[in-house]
């Protein structure tokens, strides 16, 4: 039977795995994993950057807005542009001024409405308010202005020609 050395007990001599050492290596491996995750997210940011450099600005076909001729001052009409899944709101702010915006709130895509008494576009979900002049955010959680629909007048008809983000 093997005898323990004078300095160490038998179990320490014979048992080669040391728990403190094992834990120590696990911390190092974990930190390596975290750094590799950080590298992955940095690569993700670079990928988005490269994609943005090669992104093609979309162009949209002009579309006549039906019902736009009979809107009174302070009244609105709803339409879809550029696709049926893009609801928009057209507002006559004065006798000769019409503005149109996407109706999707830039916070969580709730439908905004025109609050005539306040003269602004309001989102009922989280009380986000937008300026009717330029769609900028007046108050609330929306992070960006409302996309503006560019308009063109063709006689009595109003034509939507594009989207300004």
């Amino acid at each position, binding site marked *: 039977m093997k005898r323990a050395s004078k300095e160490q007990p038998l179990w320490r001599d014979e048992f080669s795995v040391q728990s403190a050492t094992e834990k120590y290596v696990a911390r190092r491996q974990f930190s390596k994993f975290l*750094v590799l995750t950080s590298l992955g997210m*940095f690569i993700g940011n670079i990928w988005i950057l490269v994609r*943005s450099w090669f992104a093609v600005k979309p162009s949209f076909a002009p579309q006549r807005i039906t019902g736009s001729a009979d809107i009174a001052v302070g009244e609105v009409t709803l339409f879809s542009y550029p696709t049926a899944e893009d609801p928009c709101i057209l507002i006559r702010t004065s006798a000769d001024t019409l503005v149109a915006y996407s109706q999707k709130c830039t916070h969580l895509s709730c439908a905004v409405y025109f609050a005539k008494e306040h003269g602004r576009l309001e989102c009922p979900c989280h009380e986000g308010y937008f300026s009717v002049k330029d769609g900028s955010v007046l108050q609330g959680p929306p992070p960006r202005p409302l996309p503006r629909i560019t308009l063109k007048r063709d006689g009595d008809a109003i034509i939507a020609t594009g989207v300004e983000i």
Partner: protein
Amino acid sequence: MTRRGGLTAIDGAIALIAILLVIQMWLLTATLESYLSGHSEPILPAAIISGAIFIACAGLFVFVRRIDADVRSKDLYR
């Protein structure tokens, strides 16, 4: 440096790396949301900051390895 001191330093470095990772994760999701909504202005600054965070994480990892080598060289596990 003692073994206990070394482990404490490593634990602190790992905690710091984890915090930086959370920030970087938020940055990535915010950048993606901005890109998908058509706004490309914050993408370049976000990529630069993400790179800086990665360099900080790599620096902390080098620190962890150095502490590890230092403690091991003192042969404190006997």
